[in-house]
Every structure is written in structure tokens, then in C-alpha cells.
């Protein structure tokens, strides 16, 4: 499971960077969404991923037996909500940009008109 998730995170990060480097601004937004999801999964994996066992960090004295750590999920939930808000704003921004300039090309972003 860990192995699969690691590959998935890698693929998501890779495609996010690829999309961020494209010239189309809509693809940039897609890249941002991918980047956000890759990081949410990273949080999930980094927070400990042992099924059926307590997921606290090994080596601590006060290990809670029979519980898994709910905190990473709570963090991810918060990060998803924030990411959703920012993505919605970014989409509106790009739409407005398209309405004003009639293009979604990055070249339009440069200063000299």
C-alpha cells in the first residue's frame, strides 16, 4: 500500500510540474490542483500508514494501543478545504482574465503589451 501510494504521489507531483510549465493558463490551474492533491497524499503517508495497528510514531513511551492517529486526516481535511477555496478563486481569476484579454496564453502575462 505504501509502495503504491508512493508511486501515485510521485506521478501526481510529476504531472503537476509538467502542467505548471505549460503555456496554457488553464493547465496551470490543473497543475495547482494536482500539486495540492499530491501533497495531501504525502501528508497521509507521512502521518503513518499502518493498517490494523496503532499508527503512532515508534519509539515513544506513551504509545496508545489499539488506536490510529486521527490527526493527519484532520490536517488533510483542512488542507483540502483550503485548496478548494484557492482553486475556485484561481479559476474565477483565469476566467476573468480570459474575458478581458481573450486568450489563455502565458505570453499575455508579460509586461510589454
Amino acid at each position, binding site marked *: 500500500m505504501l509502495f503504491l501510494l508512493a508511486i501515485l504521489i510521485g506521478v501526481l507531483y510529476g504531472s503537476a510540474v509538467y502542467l*505548471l510549465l505549460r503555456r496554457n*493558463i488553464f493547465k*496551470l490551474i490543473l497543475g*495547482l490542483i494536482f*500539486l*495540492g492533491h499530491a*501533497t*495531501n497524499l*504525502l*501528508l497521509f*503517508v*507521512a*502521518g*503513518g500508514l499502518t493498517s490494523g495497528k496503532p499508527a*503512532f*510514531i515508534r519509539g*515513544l513511551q506513551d504509545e496508545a494501543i489499539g488506536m490510529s492517529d486521527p*490527526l*493527519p486526516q484532520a*490536517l488533510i481535511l*483542512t*488542507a483540502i478545504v*483550503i485548496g478548494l*477555496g*484557492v482553486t475556485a*478563486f*484561481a479559476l474565477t*481569476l*483565469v476566467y*476573468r*482574465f480570459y474575458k*478581458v*484579454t481573450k486568450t489563455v496564453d502565458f505570453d*499575455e*502575462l508579460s*509586461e510589454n503589451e
Partner: protein
Amino acid sequence: MILVLPVILPLLFMVVLIFTRRWLIFQQSFSLLASIGLTFTSLLILLDVYQNGIMSLQPGTWEAPFGITLVADTFSAMMMLTTSFVSIVVMIYSPGFIDRERQTSGYYPLVFGLLMGVNGAFITGDIFNLYVWYEVMLTSSFVLIALGGSAEQLRGSIKYVTINFVASIFFVAAIGILYGQVGTLNMADLAAKMRTWDDGSYINGALMLFFIAFSVKSALVPFFFWLPASYHTPPIAITALFAGTLTKVGVYTMFRFYSLFVVFDQQFWQIFILTLAGLTMFIGVLMAASQFDIRKILSFHIISQVGYMVMGLGIFTASGIAGAIYFTIHNMLSKTNTFIAGGLVYQRSGSYDLKYLGGLYKASPLLALLFFIPAMSLAGIPPLPGFFGKFFLIKGGFEAQQYFITAVAILTGLFTLFSMVKIWNEAYWKKEPEEVQIRNGKVHPSTITATAILAVAVILLGVFAGPVMEISMDAGEQIVNPEMYINAVLGR
């Protein structure tokens, strides 16, 4: 309990302002009173912290490592006070500068949203909560920078939103890795646990991600290109607010994290930070020298001066940090002041471009004086605070025997003077050129009042450099000795 007010009050103000956003006069006067109230609260917190030491609060009575802790030490209280003072000035300035359309479509509530995020970032003692405050602050700033929706603003905001979103991603990833390794989110608890750790590889990896996130937000080399590409696009009152608060939150967080979390390989981090600080100072000021738009010159100066602050961090002695803190306070005031003085130039002659400006000294000595004070303060001319800030930093650098970075700082000071003199010569002294855009523009009295108030504050900061420096020394001691912070939060 006073510690929740810097966060709760802006939230309440924002709610009130959202529902009344069409009543222009109410918005203006309420925001002004609200920001005065906020300043007063921050002042009370600063006095309390200065007398009784670091203050911490556990909302919801969850004990320290489990709940979200609010902590105010001298540094964060000073930053809150300066931020809310800057907001007063911006509130006086805005009615005379920003058009009615923007003012009634949510400008004032957004400013309080921004202040809530900034204060929250200063006051929180929990890394994930810090991320949330950063997002509150950034989301407000996203909307503020795009407010009005002109093509130029949209261009600027797409760059601004993208780079800040990517930086936030680095931030969250670092939190995840750190949590996975150490198993706590409370800053003091993290710092205490790290000091008993024997393997620093994961921690340093996470710290590097944090460092990238914060250096994007505070515009350090090599992550500064977004700032001059976006800061000049919104009306200058908004730019002034950003210049006075946003990048400084990044700097503040960097100070806090360095003090608490740099436990392993301290020498590497010190050299690394000093190198970046030197490069930031120098490259920022060199790029400023080649610009002809007042707003762009000043934007590049923000970068250069963030370099000074980070240099104080790299020195990492109590006097170096104190110098950096004094410099940060000075910079928040002087920088905002130069920006809004630039706004006066715009109202008078309809342009920010030095090629179309000239003869303003002859036309209006008052405007010239109002620009001269903060500009000379930034350049570091004696009775003004910029001089003391640089003096304390350079003194701290010599005491810590960091001669190279100190030499760079002195050299950068010369270049800063050069570009301030450039604006002065071009806009104020040179003869008025033939093709000007507006010949006798009307300067609104509220903008002049705001600029004058801030100029007086800048002068006072220079006059009372001694007492302010004393408070900064207190803050510097707290940063250099993180045990004080850890013990205050964990109640040991």
C-alpha cells in the same frame, strides 16, 4: 484572555463590514475606529509581555501539546503593534485614493481579513495553525490584489496566486514530514522533542522545505521575482499595506522557526542564511537601480531590505537579532510611507514613471518633504530610524565577527541611497518634462494627512531609538534563548 483579541476582533469587524459594504461613510469611519482599537489592544499586549514575560493561552483548556496554543513574546507583540498602526494609516489614506467602486465592493472587510491572518500568524504556537493563518492572510491578499479586475491587475494576481499557492504546498508538505517524524504540531513541544532527537536528517529535510516556503513569501533570493511582477498592479494603498505587512510575516516566521527548530547542523544553516541574505540585499538593490517606475523601484527595495532582516537572523546573537527587529519595525513604517508618498506623486501628476515626472519640489514643497523623510530613512541618514537600524545590525555583525556580510550591508546601503536620490532627482528636482499626463492633479487631503502621520511616526521611531532598541533587545534575548519560549508554553 486578551491574547485572543487580535484574532477575534478583526473577524468581528470583517463580519460587520461585509454586511454594510454599500454604506461608504460607515465603512470608512468604522474601519478607522476599528484599526485604532486593534492598535490599542496590541499596545496592551506589548506592555503586558514586556513586563511579565512571554504570555501563552490554551483556548478550550486543552493542555499545551494537544490543543492549539496562542503565544505572544516581545517580538510578536511588537510586530502586531506595528502592523495595526500601519493599518490605521492605510485606513486614513484609502478614502482619498481608492475609487468608490473598489471601496464599496469589499475593500474594507478584506483588509480586516488580512489583518486577522497576519495577527494570527504572529500569535499562534502551532505549525498547522500557522499554515491556516497564512492561508487566511493570503486569500485576503489574493482578492485585494485582484480587486477591481483591470487587465494589469489580473496579470499580476495570476503570478501572485500561483507562486503563493506553490509555496503553501511546500509548507504543508514540510508539516506532514515533521509531524510524521516527531509526532506533534505544537511549536514549543516540537522544539523540546527535537532537542532530545539523535537523527536530524528528516528534520533538516522538513526545515529546508519550510525555508523554501518562507523565502518565497518573504521574497528572498532566488524566489523574489513574483514580488516586483505583482506588487505594482493594485492601487498603491493596497501595495503599501502589503509592503508593510506581508513579506514581514515571512521574515517573522523564519526568525521563529530558526530559533526553535534549527538544532542540527547549526553552522550550515548560519552560513546558508547569511549567504542568501547577502545575495538578497545586493541583487535587490541592483535591480532597483535599473527601474524607472517608482513602484517598481520601491518593490525591489523591499527585497533588498528583507535581506538586511535575514542577515540579523544569520548573525544570531541577541544584539544582531535586536538590530534586525528594530530594522523590521523601521522598515514596516518607512516602506509603507514611501509607497503612500509615491501615491501622492501619482495624484499630483498622474504617473509613477520617472520619465513623465519632474518639478514637483518647485510645485509642491510639502509633497517633496513627505517623500524626503521616509526615503532618507530607508537610505539610512542619521536622525532617522533607517540609520539606527543599519547601525545596530552592522554593530551586531562586527561583534559576531561576520565581517564579510557586514561589508555587503554597508555597500548595499550606498546603493539604496543612490536609488532614493534617483527618485528625488527625477521626480522632484528635474524640470517638469513636456509630455506630462496631468499638470495640476488634485491631491486629496486625507492622503496628505495619512502620509504626514506616518512621517511623524518614522521621525519618532528615530528619536526614541534608545527605548525601542531596549524592547528589541528583550525580544532578541527571547529569540536567542528558545528555552524561554518552550518553558512558557509547556508550563515548566
